[in-house]
């Protein structure tokens, strides 16, 4: 039986929700973003598992931008776009970082767990599609993440990691 967020009304998911946000290098807004994601999930009748995964993926992605690309510079800005349809939860994080090379992201050695480096690893495991799009001309990076959504009445569907082997 599919679980739903307490307070969510049963029934069909709204056709589409789209949010565009502009964030800065100040990390204090991330808690607010998680609350916005929660509100969005309620409106879309999404499962707690989907909400939890999306909150974690967005937080880790934005944290990486703020910490590694912007080095906490509050004057720099980046985009966070969320689009939820009946089929998928799409997240785009867009920012400028001419130095960034996705191929250099280290893979953590889980047998010898380190204190850092888990963010991208977690994102790749909890989301169904993850890709970095690099505009070499401008240095603009777009991190595109997709969580596939089953129909609300699909038992065991929503929130299941459909690619656990990654």
């Amino acid at each position, binding site marked *: 039986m599919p679980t739903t967020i307490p307070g969510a009304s049963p029934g069909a998911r709204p056709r589409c929700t789209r949010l565009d946000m502009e964030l800065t290098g100040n990390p204090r807004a991330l808690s607010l973003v998680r609350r916005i994601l929660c509100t969005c999930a309620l409106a879309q009748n999404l499962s707690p598992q989907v909400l939890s995964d999306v909150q*974690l993926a967005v937080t880790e992605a934005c944290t990486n931008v703020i910490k590694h690309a912007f080095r906490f510079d509050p004057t720099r800005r980046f985009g966070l776009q969320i689009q939820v349809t009946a089929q998928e939860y799409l997240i785009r994080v867009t920012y400028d970082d001419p130095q960034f090379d996705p191929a250099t992201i280290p893979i953590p050695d*889980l047998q*010898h767990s*380190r204190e850092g480096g888990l963010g991208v690893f977690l994102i790749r495991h909890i989301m169904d599609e993850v890709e970095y799009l690099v505009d070499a001309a401008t240095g603009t990076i777009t991190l595109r993440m997709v969580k596939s959504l089953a129909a609300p009445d699909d038992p065991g569907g929503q929130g299941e990691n459909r690619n656990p082997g990654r």
Partner: protein
Amino acid sequence: MSLTIECQEREHGVVIVDVRGEITFENSDLLRDKINELCDQHKTRLVIDLANLKYMSSAGMGVLVHGLKKTRQGQGDLRLAHLSPKMRRVFLITQFTHHFSVFASLEEAIQSFAVAPTEAKPFPSPS
């Protein structure tokens, strides 16, 4: 949402570290500092109570790894109680369940130190 940390000493030299709110990279140093402070006082038998933790990012998980290493260096251990299902899933993905001892209740976690005062699960050192 902020992070609050309260400590309580219990039997067998165990300190319960009750964390409430959210652990993110903004505030994870609060927990790191608290763990360091306890270890500096030779209090290395720690149980992190996660019952009232609403959210933890990878930064928080990093602090738990730090705490695990730090307490074991002091012949103790860091154990977890009340791991929520969503956190358990993340722990499984990252294989943290191989390294941390996790208990359903505080009492079980405290009693575990009477049986196995030091590390209950191995944490291999980097080769």
